[in-house]
């Protein structure tokens, strides 16, 4: 039997992060990098590039074993 805070934390994790935690980590790291590149053109180009790569990697992993 789990306590309700643990159950709530688990629910929140599954609600926001979902099936693939690497997506959340990649987005967080990319946002730190965008903040570091404050004001430069690379700032707004970086995140869409990361999104495409992380989505492709996640999909490849999802179908990889088939």
């Amino acid at each position, binding site marked *: 039997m789990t306590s309700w805070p643990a159950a709530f934390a688990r629910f929140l994790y599954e*609600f*926001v*992060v*979902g*099936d*693939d935690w690497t*997506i*959340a980590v990649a*987005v*967080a790291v990319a*946002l730190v990098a*965008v*903040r570091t*590149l*404050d*004001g*430069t053109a690379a*700032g*707004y180009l970086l*995140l*869409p590039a990361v*999104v*495409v790569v*992380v*989505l*492709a990697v*996640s*999909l490849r992993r*999802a*179908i990889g074993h*088939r």
Partner: protein
Amino acid sequence: MSALFLFLASFLASAVEGVEALTIVLALGITRGWRSTMIGVATASATLAVVVAALGPALTVIPIRDLRLVVGGLLLVFGLQWLRKAILRAGGFKALHDEAEIYQREAEEARLAGAERRRGVDWYAFTVAFKGVLLEGLEVAFIVLTFGSNQRNIPLAAAGAVTAVLLVAVVGVAVRAPLARVPENTMKFAVGLLLTTFGTFWAVEGAGASWPGRDAALLVLLAFYAAVSLAMVRLLRARRVSLDRLVPE
């Protein structure tokens, strides 16, 4: 333009979740009776209204840049979940959402469940209806709060959600059957694209970078993500076909 996107994203996401909640409510109402089911629906709706009413004003006092970074990042992660599942479904690697099938399963489970009454309420119908509406509704509440607070217009986001829920409810009452003909999988794909687009846009602004063309960049981002996602669907479909050829009939 942003206001239109705000309303559209909130409306589409709410319509999708509304259709899913309606399937559960119909299965329970028809097999277990409407009174306890509707008490569950009303209690969950009131809980969701309290969540939005409590968190909405709190979010609007956070400085816009910090809000966009945190909420934009969360929205992006959340949106990528939707988009990933939608691409897997469209590519043939995940079963399509089938409301008719879900309705049959829910109705069968409701018929087989025992009859426990507390204070005149069918406890099974109440709890399943409450949980179903609350869980589907939390996704809507999340989208309304994140979109609304970032645009500083929670009422417009909430209006999009309420319009969609009312529309689904009216059609559901009229047809008394799960809305299996609603292009739910296509709508989920569109919502995933919108969440990912807005999440990216706001997170980058919150992180301190600025978009060339300001709001017009939203359209470019949306077109870019749509093109990439459709290309991924094509690749997955080709992979699905080649895998199916390997499996003997």
